[in-house]
Every structure is written in C-alpha cells, then in structure tokens.
C-alpha cells in the first residue's frame, strides 16, 4: 500500500476546500522553519497528529513515513552535532590522540547536538504535516485549488502528476526488490546497514531510469491531448467555499494569531 496515497473519507479535513488546506499547511510550514520556540513546533505537531487521527488515516502510515525518513533525521543530527559551532564539549577530541596525522581532532558539542535535534524535530513535524493534504484531497481537486489560487495550470498539473507518480514509483521499487529476491539477493531484508548502503544503487538506478522513461512517454501522451496548447483550460470539477471553509479559515487565523503572539511578542 503506497505511503502517501489519497484515502477517501468524510472527515472535517477531507471536506475542506483545497485552498484552505494549502493556506493551512503553508502557514504552518513557515512557522515551523521560522520559530525558535520548541513549544510552538510541538503545538503544530500535536495538531497534525490530531488531524491524522480525526481524518481516519491509519497511524501505521505515520510510522511508515517516519521510518522511511529516519536515515535523513539521523544524518542531519550527526552533521549538526559534528560541525555546528558550540562551547560545551560532549566528546573531545572525537579522534583519539594516538591516531597518526588526524588524532586529537574533531568534537561533538552540546549546542550542536541540540541544534541537530531541533532541526530533526522540525523536519519530523513538517513530514507529518505535509502528507495530510495529499492523503485527504483528490488530486484533481488539489490541482484545481492551486489553479484558483493563481498558479499556472501547467505547474499545478506538473506538481499533482508528480504526487500521483509517487505510488507507482513505490510499486516499481517493490518490483525491483522482488526481482532481486528471486535471484537470491536479499540484502534489503537480511543484510546489515553497510551492506544495504552498498546495495542501494541497484535499487535506485533502475527506479530513476524507469521514472525518466515513463515521464518522457507521459509528456508525449499529454502533448497528444493538447496539454499546454492554450493559456487556460476548462474544468469539469467545481470547487466553492462553504460555511465550513470560512469557519476553518477564521479558526486558522485565530490560531496563527495566538502562535504569532507567543512567538514574536512574548
């Protein structure tokens, strides 16, 4: 089952106009990366988790996403811990003095580690927040929402088709892995971390080549259906703001106001 596929439903968040969802997610994304307040990020994370649960999206999906992103979190934390300037040493020197040439160099600082953890926490919040939109909004409606917000339909379609391609790329990875297993190559199931790292190119190369081929053929098929031949296009779908959307917007503005007060004034 693909990780960020649209899951139809009747929840409050499902029913919102895609424009409200886009404003909602963009404003919180800006907050996540501009605030230095740990509690504000936590409030956004709690809200994102609340929306996941109330939208009926299985919690297992969050765990899957976090698991997929785990190597990136670890990498960010390690890099920050090693290279961020700080005064309080946790490990110093990192390389023992007896090692020739490079001995006595490198250190891990408390400030760097905390900074790394904060960035990791921001990424985690963002990663839990962002799929909410693609999992609760039909791709056609999402595209229409972007167009109604003033985005060129060519860019909106490119973005939504890219989202649409993620599940098929996941399927392709599974196919490659199955093909590898059939030939006795089970490193991704049974191997150690360094073996997996070594084996990644065997997975990534066919996936990238396959995706490039597919996107080239898709562009031919889109050209054949006159995509981009006119400045604007018509849509059979319709979206309109309802009372729920207006109330959601008001709630959002109030929440953003409270967060801004705690972030900028207090």
């Amino acid at each position, binding site marked *: 089952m693909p990780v960020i596929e649209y899951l139809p439903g009747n929840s409050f968040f499902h029913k919102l106009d895609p424009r409200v969802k886009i404003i909602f997610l963009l404003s919180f994304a800006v907050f996540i990366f501009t605030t230095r307040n740990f509690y504000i990020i936590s409030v956004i994370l709690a809200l994102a988790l609340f929306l996941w649960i109330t939208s009926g999206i299985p919690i297992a999906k969050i765990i899957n996403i976090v698991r997929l992103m785990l190597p990136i979190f670890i990498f960010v934390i390690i890099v920050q811990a090693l290279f961020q300037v700080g005064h309080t040493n946790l490990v110093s020197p990192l390389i023992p003095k007896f090692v020739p040439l490079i001995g006595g160099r490198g250190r891990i600082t408390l400030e760097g580690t905390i900074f790394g953890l904060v960035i990791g926490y921001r990424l985690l919040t963002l990663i839990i927040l962002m799929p909410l939109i693609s999992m609760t909004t*039909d791709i056609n409606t999402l595209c229409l929402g972007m167009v109604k917000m003033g985005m060129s339909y060519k860019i909106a379609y490119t973005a939504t088709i890219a989202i649409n391609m993620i599940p098929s790329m996941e399927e392709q990875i599974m196919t490659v892995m199955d093909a590898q297993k059939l030939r006795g190559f089970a490193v991704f199931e049974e191997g150690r971390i360094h073996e997996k790292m070594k084996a990644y190119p065997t997975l990534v190369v066919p996936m990238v080549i396959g995706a490039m081929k597919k996107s080239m*053929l898709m562009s*031919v098929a889109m050209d054949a259906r*006159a995509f981009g031949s006119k400045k604007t296009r018509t849509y*059979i779908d319709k979206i309109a703001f309802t009372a729920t959307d207006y109330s959601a917007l008001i709630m959002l503005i109030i929440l953003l106001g409270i967060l801004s007060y705690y972030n900028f004034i207090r």
Partner: protein
Amino acid sequence: MNQPVIEVKKLYYRYPYADRYVLNDINFSVNKGEFLCITGENGAGKTTLSLIISGIIPQAQGGKMRGTVTIAGLDTSEHELAVLSQNIGIVLEDPETQLFTSKVINEVAFGAENLQIPPEEIFSRIRWALKVVRLEGYENQHPMMLSGGQKQRVAIASVLAMRPNILVLDEPTSQLDPIGTIEVFEVIKELKEKYSMTIVMVTHKSEEMAYFADNILVLSHGSVLAYGKPKDILSNREVTTNAWITIPQISELYLKLKERGIDLGEFPILQEEGVALIRDLLEKRLSANA
C-alpha cells in the same frame, strides 16, 4: 471515400542530436474512412511515423523534418497541436503512461478541457466516449485500479472525447493480455464499422492486419518496403521475410498444404476464408469418392 485525409509526401525525419534520418522518403496517403495498418521490424520507424502523423513531431518533440504531412488539409508543421488534435488523436502503446488523473471521468475529460470545451459539452462527450469503449458506470473509478484492457479503453475514450476524425493507434494491444486484447479489438471494430472512422494502426499482429486493414504499409529501416492490400502483402514471401512479419496461422496452413501438393486455391488471410476453402476441398473430395 476517395478523399485523402492524410497525405505524407517526401518525408524525412531525424531526431534531435541524432546523426542519421530514421525515416527516409516516405510517401503515402489515407482516404476518409480507410483503415491503414503500419507494420515492420522493431526500430523500423513505425512509432516515429505515427507521432509525425499526429503532429506531435515536430510540434512538441522537435528534430529535423523534411517533406510535408497534411491532416484534413492542415499542414502539421504550420498548425498548433490544439488545432491538429481536434482532427487527429493518438493512443500510445503503454496504457499507464497515458493516465494522469485519479478518476476515469477526469481522464476522459482531460483532452477536451485542454481545448477549452465548455463543461456541459464535455459531459455529453464523456457519456458518448465511455459508451463507445463500453466503460459506462466506471466514471468514478481510479484508472490505475483498472485492468490493462480497461486502461487502454480509457485512453481511447480520452482521445475520442476530443472528437477527432482520424485515430492513430500505436500498438494498442501489445502490452495487454488476451482478454484485454479482445476488449480493445471489439472497440476498434466498432469504431471502424459503426462510426466509419479513419484509423491508422501500428501493429505486429498479422491477424489484426488481415481483419481490419484496407491497406498495409510495411516499413523497413526507415523506408517503405511495401504498400498494398492485406492479401497482396501477406502473400508476398519476400516482404514478410524481410519485415519479419509472421503471417496468419491460416495462411501458414495454406502454404504447408501447398508444399504437400494440396492446393486450396486462393491465398486465405482470414480464418473464415480458410475454413470455407477447406470445407470446399473436403466436399469436392467426398463427392469424387462417392
């Protein structure tokens, strides 16, 4: 019937950054309501030619093209794809690369929306197109959840909703299982017989050629190796051998019997023809023995 709607004259084509022409001196025409099959070995230039006829080359894909290609009186080099696509539509080989949206209804509407057709008109076209491809009731299904044959029929419906007079099918059944092939086959048959559409189909399958084609164009290494009626092309050993065409099983049986001294008479390309010839032969023998 004898009015050409596709005219290809002295066509040469070279892909961007390529150093040789993949199509050389191609000349042919297709009349209104005609069914033309294009065949040839892999790499002969069949798909390139179908993209050229559809105007995608050179309008969207670039490259160096010489000669003229006219569709319903419109020179494909001089008219935009939006104009050309209302006259000619193309369905590609792989159904999955032709599906971009999350519902069958949006998929079928995609091309018509790009042509700025009003939504009410699009809805009536969707109803008609889904009826033609026998997918009524599938409007809200996710295209990726359909079978191969159904996906290809959605792709055909999406092109039909643009209301072209000419349809180009690039190996529409090559990636389908036997059931999917039959489903698509039935739709093509209806488009030919009921709607008298002008159809150009790229195919390797000689049974399909024998059944549908008014004429066959055989390409080899980017040039026209032969052009003519299905019976003339499929009975020409030199052409079928050079273009790697596997002749229909019934034609193969005819040749095998002939080698053993049994002449059925006329060269059959359709199963029904062969059955009739064998029945005649058996009846003659039975009456001779009696």
